[in-house]
């Protein structure tokens, strides 16, 4: 989930509204959302293959998995890895991002590497990390941390770099201390960018959790997917996928909303 922030002259989207538009919009939105499950259900109904299971089968399977506790336990395990890795990645990303954005020397020294690694398919490193760190909890957390680090660092740096020069000069004129100008100018004006970085990190960290669970020890939602799909229990193997879908979308929407609240004046392109 790579990112784009264009904090400059992208024209604001001002759609012209006609009467009844918002009702139409809701209608189409829900129609589009329901289209895929409905088609999928009909297809599974007419398909002879037992491997094609419809949304209703998945729903039934999910009730069973909730009742016997497997789903909750797996979600807890994955959630713990996700939260720990995310926190570590965000903290590290903030630290490096602030330094890179604030100090030109650090920027010049580190930016080429950060940009290059950001464009690297980091999944390629997972087998090596597993060899180095083992199959346990720490390997998973490190994998998630590495994935979450880069978007946070890059967007934080972009935010700090974009602090209005006027404000900085004003702070200097009034002999503001470095710490004060960080608190009053640098952090507030780069906050929307930091949240963007976190939103992008969420998507990558979810990928990292699943890849880590596919490649390491037998825990979490990733393993649940593997186990059931190997037994050809397709409905059960799709339940964790749906959980991930809902989690990803909920977190994305939450962070997107807070982005819009924090800075309605910054144009943040999606992606």
């Amino acid at each position: 989930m790579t990112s784009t922030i264009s904090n400059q002259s992208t024209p604001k989207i001002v759609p012209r509204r006609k009467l009844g538009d918002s009702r139409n919009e809701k209608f189409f939105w829900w129609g589009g959302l329901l289209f895929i499950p409905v088609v999928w259900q009909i297809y599974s109904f007419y398909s002879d293959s037992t491997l094609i299971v419809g949304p209703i089968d998945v729903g039934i399977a999910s009730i069973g998995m909730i009742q016997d506790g497997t789903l909750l336990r797996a979600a807890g395990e994955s959630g713990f890895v996700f939260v720990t890795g995310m926190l570590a990645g965000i903290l590290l990303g903030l630290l490096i991002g602030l330094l890179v954005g604030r100090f030109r020397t650090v920027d010049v020294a580190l930016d080429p590497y950060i940009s290059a690694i950001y464009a690297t398919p980091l999944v390629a490193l997972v087998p090596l990390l597993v060899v180095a760190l083992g199959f346990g909890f720490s390997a998973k957390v490190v994998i998630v941390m590495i994935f979450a680090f880069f978007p946070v660092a890059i967007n934080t740096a972009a935010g700090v770099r974009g602090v209005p020069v006027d404000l900085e000069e004003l702070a200097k004129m009034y002999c503001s201390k470095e710490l004060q100008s960080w608190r009053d100018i640098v952090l507030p004006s780069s906050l929307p960018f930091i949240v963007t970085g976190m939103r992008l990190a969420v998507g990558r960290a979810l990928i990292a959790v699943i890849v880590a669970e596919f490649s390491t020890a037998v825990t979490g939602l990733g393993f649940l997917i593997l186990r059931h799909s190997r037994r050809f229990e397709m409905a059960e193997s799709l339940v964790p996928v749906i959980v991930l879908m809902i989690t990803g979308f909920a977190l994305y929407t939450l962070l997107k909303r807070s982005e819009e609240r924090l800075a309605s004046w910054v144009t943040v392109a999606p992606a």
Partner: protein
Amino acid sequence: MAYQVSNRGLSPQKVLVVRLAAAAFLLGLWYAAAISSGSLFLATPHDVIIRLGQSMANGEFLEYLGPTAYILGIGAGLGVAVGVPLGLLIGRFRWLQWSTEGPINILYTTPIVALIPFMLVIIGFNNQSKILIVFLFTVLPVIINTAVGVRTVDRDLLELTKSFCSTEGPVWRDVLMPASLPAVMTGLRIGLIHALVGAVLADFYAGASGFGYLIILYSNRFDVAGALGPVLVLALTGTAVAALLKNAQTRLSPWERASR
């Protein structure tokens, strides 16, 4: 991105010195870490390069590069060929935007890796599933960015075309296409980088061939130097793709600073 702020007081010579010092420092750090941790965890840079050279010389490199390049070419090609037109349409027609917004965003925020075991059961361990994986990784960012590009075209220009009774064709040619080009390029860049990730994951899980498999093969033998070679090549490919497309973007639309 680093080059936006040119007036923050570092001369070109100083930049060069800092860059060289940083490179030397990081390389030194790598050596120190590799030597102190033993060859089981990390290999020294020259070992990695030597092993990479060997594998290129004995043909192994090309043998594993082929399948990955194949699925990458077809998967990413299809992703772009489907994603750009779809994104243009979604950006242009509001009802299409409304009805696709939900599914596209949900699919985009879902870790597609989680679907791989499912695809393998339905489609099988073959190139078709690999191509599908790469395709899914590529197509979503391309659609989303292209649609945003069309949607953010200056409204005044569109009103103007209407005032002059322009038909749909010329509107696309003269207004929509050129104005959305930067966003399309952003979509291509992100899409192609995602495609690389998809290709590696496809090689990991959907059949024993390609670059990703080579990494697993060496890792399982605890041959870190061997495994880091393909990782290095993938890193260079990703960086080169990103740099090339960013360059093309600033050339095609110099009025808009390339965003990341």
